[in-house]
């Protein structure tokens, strides 16, 4: 998968990014293209339900056979939720080989880390959703109080103390926490030094933007410099997406019928019979 990054025309409002082409893999049902506006809408809270593992232990047999399906679908559901929440500037994509590993990239739009583009990988424990919290590891260790300077691992634990499920959202929040609120040894007094280190780190990360992906996977996120021959078409497609989507709904596949007037609960309440011929 290729994700291109248009440096020149990036704005806070609209971010371009996302899969240019969707490959289908046997294990993955096709996902929609991610088209993320800047403001998250309809973030649906999920109540924590008992996990299937615990609720069905009594039913011997069934769980063993279907357990992997539960895991797979829990992950897919999680992923759909990420799509639906439309977190601004964050894009994730499960790897081709496993739904337990997701590739991601975050575009920072304001604040200290503005203009930073950080790639990361999410590793989800195989006993999801009951296990430990997922690990988020930045390809290049960003200089950040919550990021391990050697491994690049983000400290996500604090976000998972109570609500494990909201990991995606929390992850983002923890990244944008104002650093001066944290007890950082050395830097709490010298904020300027901290700032300059951040700027350097952002530069360093961005200089590695076009590096090959760390992990060889067809769905790994890779950036390349703007190349009209490659990217123009994908960009056009992306902008045409909304229209396509509309047409798609009106296509011949639509087989449903309705004569209910919006707002009414009476059958055949539409005065004008719409003839869907």
């Amino acid at each position: 998968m290729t994700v291109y990054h248009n440096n020149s025309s990036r704005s806070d409002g609209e971010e371009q990014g996302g899969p240019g082409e969707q490959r289908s893999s046997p294990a993955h049902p096709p996902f929609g293209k991610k088209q993320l506006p800047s403001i998250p809408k309809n973030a649906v809270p999920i109540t924590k339900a008992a996990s299937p593992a615990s609720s069905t232990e009594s039913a011997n047999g069934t769980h063993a056979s279907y357990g992997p399906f539960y895991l797979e679908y829990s992950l897919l559901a999680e992923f759909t939720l990420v799509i639906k929440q439309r977190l601004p500037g964050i894009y994730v994509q499960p790897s081709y080989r496993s739904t337990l590993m997701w590739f991601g990239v975050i575009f920072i739009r304001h604040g200290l880390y503005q203009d930073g583009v950080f790639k990361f990988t999410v590793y989800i424990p195989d006993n999801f959703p009951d296990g430990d919290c997922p690990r988020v590891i930045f390809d290049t260790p960003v200089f950040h109080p919550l990021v391990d300077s050697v491994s690049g691992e983000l400290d996500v634990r604090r976000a998972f103390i109570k609500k494990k499920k909201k990991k995606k959202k929390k992850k983002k929040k923890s990244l944008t926490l104002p650093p001066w609120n944290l007890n950082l040894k050395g830097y709490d007094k010298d904020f300027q030094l901290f700032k300059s280190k951040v700027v350097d780190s952002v530069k360093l990360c961005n200089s590695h933007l076009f590096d090959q992906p760390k992990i060889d996977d067809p769905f790994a996120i890779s950036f390349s410099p703007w190349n009209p021959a490659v990217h123009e078409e994908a960009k056009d497609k992306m902008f045409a997406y909304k229209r396509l989507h509309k047409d798609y709904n009106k296509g011949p596949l639509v087989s449903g019928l309705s004569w209910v007037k919006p707002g009414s609960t009476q059958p055949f309440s539409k005065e004008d019979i719409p003839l869907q011929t």
Partner: protein
Amino acid sequence: MTSMVVNGKRGGQSLVLKGVDPETCMIVFKNHWAQVVKILEKHDPLRSNVGGLGGGHGLGGGGGLASFRFGAIPGDEASAVQNYVEHMLFLLMEEECGQNGAMGPILEFVVMENVLERLFIWSLRREFTDDMKLEQLKMYEMLIGQAKQPLLHHKPVLKPLMMLLSSCSGSPSGPSSSAVETELVLLLNQLCCVLAKDPSVLELFFHTSEDQGAANFLIFSLLIPFIHREGSVGQQARDALLLIMALSAENQVVAKHIAENTYFCPVLATGLSGLYSSLPTKLDVPSEEWHCLHREDWQQLPALVQFLNSLEFCNAVIQVAHPSIRDQLVGYIHNGFLVPVLAPALHKLTLEEVMTTTAYLDLFIRSVSEPALLHTLLSFILLHRHDNVHILDTLVSRINTPFQLGTVSLALFRTLIGLHCEDVMLQLVFKYLIPCNHMMLSQRRVLRERDCYSVSAAKLLALTPSCCSPEVIPPPLRQLDSILWSKGTDGSHIGTMESKEVLSEEDDCGNSCVIGSEIYLDVSYLDYLCDAQNSISHCIRACCVWSAPYDGENPPPEEYQRSTLEEADLTATPGLLELEWDDSYDACPTQPHPEEDQETRPIPDEPPKHIQELRRTAVMIVKGSYIEESEFQNDVMVYDLVAQKDAHDSGNGYHAPSKPTEPAKQEVLDGPVTDQKTANSESLMSNGLSSPLDEMDSKKRGSQSEHKSLEGEDLMAQYEELIRTLGAQHSSPAKADGELKSPTVLMDDEEDEIDFNSFSPETPETEKLPSPFGTKPRSGSRGHAVPFTGPFLSVLLSRLENMPSNSLHVNLLLTGILAQLAAYPQPLLRSFLLNTNMVFQPSVRSLYQVLASVKNQIEQWSANNKDFPELLTAAQHSLLARESSLRADRIKKNPTIQPKTVVPLNETEVYATVLFTEFLKELAAFAQEHSILSYPPTEQ
């Protein structure tokens, strides 16, 4: 003869003519014509020379024809003319257009000399017999079909043609021979093709008609009588009419003419009624498994084929015609066919007739595709009332009929649900769910949640009976396969680039290395997932046109509740008294709701408790009986019990409700329906009053005696006997016998059915017109006080609960319909069916509860039957064989290998167990797919 022209020359001479120069052709043509003219003039009474017969001679009417007959024309002269004409026509046909689309010289000559008109008059002068008509018709058919230049633009061609056509329309000599009709329709069809290609000709047709004083648009009027004709003539006529219909969409004048000046729409619609009346009123049902009319079935019935042809034609007309014609036709179909013909047919007196009509209705709905026509059919079902009961309510109540009417009704609902029609689903399901009364208040909040962690799926799968657990079942039935469940990248290559060493180490030490291991999985489950994904996405797409998401907020629960109540109050609800076969009736007559019962159900004497109990059991066993409690008089009951006993005696045991033996069936069938009719009329009159029961009794007795051969005097004795037998059964439900389950099972229904009873009086009437006036509160209106998910869902679940005793095909239908419902993305329905964590009102039975009950029945049964595992394996094999033979059928008729041991189909428990296990997988797959698909579909 011209026929020779037609037959003989098409192939042969065109080759000969090639290369012959146009001038030669012209000379030949003129020579021939000169010969013809000689003969023509010889017999012309007026002796006029050229073109002497103008338009004004009143040729159109049949009356004027005789005046041209002038002595007999010798046969040799007639045949000479024919020979010349043949050649001339051929030359004309073969002539190419002149330069710049001008007429070719021969055509010009034809026009100048008025050749065709003179030939027509010549044929009139001779006896204008069918043969002559045929000859002329064929001539034009050939000319129009094969001429290389447009002919109809020229009045001298068009006019005699119109004269010919009018002479065919009002033929005074009675109906024309079939040969003439065939040829006429063929010619008309051809003309319509020309019209369709070149609408400018249309004007000419209208004008020429006016000239002749004949009916406007003669071509069209001539076709109407053939609309419903069978065979190829009818088909050609309908094709031709369709071409004109398509023209009407573009041409206001044509549309107006058809709608206002012709009988097209009424003929078409009332013709349906005529054709319907010739359909068999009872079908020869091939097997007990049969539940709907497939192509193989209806192709055997010529009357039905003809009806479907006409229906298909209506569908096509509605598709292409101008809206004014469409609306008119749809109106006539409703008022001229559905209401006066189909509605009474759905309420005939015998089960077979009603079943047949239901199967027809199902077939009709499946045969039409145009939204406007579906609108008509569906609004008839949903809104029309027959004897003050909505057709839909009657149909729903029949689901619970034992016998084939029940399965045929199920099949009809399968069709209806498959339409993805909001109006249908609203009336059937959603209007009962919108108020959200069926769930605890706290649950409304979580209504829209999806099964994100596969909890519901796991709970559903955990209901798998222990005898069917994946470990127990041997291959190949258990299609286990190893799937490489990798939990990271393969680890073979960690990125090729050199980068931060730390990171690649990190990768190596556990995040992306091969954790993947081989896990054995139920591979068939993948197919269920795939199917579920397809049907859910299809359903989501189809429901895009719906007006509301039905998510517990839109439509708002509170609003709907209020309006429903008002509406319910508005009309004097006849309640369920008219409903046949309603589950709510036989379900629980001994749970009277105090006020309601005094109002509507006068009970003469309170029988002893054990009798009440017994009655309930009996009624529940004999589900076929339609009995309102107050009507539940001894004779009816005895009658049913006797039928039931017969069934028992003949060895069917406890399966009797779903598959009684033939004689018992016959008797029961005719009996209760009639009773019910009587009861209906009685209860209509006596609704809310305490009725003279004795009179009713005697009436019912009378009606029964007409239909049954049972001796009335024995009834009481048999009743007593039955009470003993059944009572004994009921009191010892622990017997390790196939029969033991029914009381237990049915008692489980009890709580479910209580609310049926109390709610139903309000439910069928919720779609009344809104009241312009205030409404007075209705006493005992507990419609929404008692949670209820509607008769349809309740009946489905109650039949599902009987899964172990249902026959295989009933269970296939039931699970199929539930799977259809489970594909709907609307949170109200999805949460009701698939969310196993939802907490519903105690009186509401959820799918999960019903499934759990079925599981328990199966577990009990399998525990008590030591040969169950073998039977189960054999049943699985025969179901597999059935499936592969069905698949083979679809591809080509190729018999597949039959399994060695065939479990008899009456081992319903065995088949039900297999089916149940598969159904759980299906439902779990739906739950899982919903969790990731319940968003508007994104790009494929």
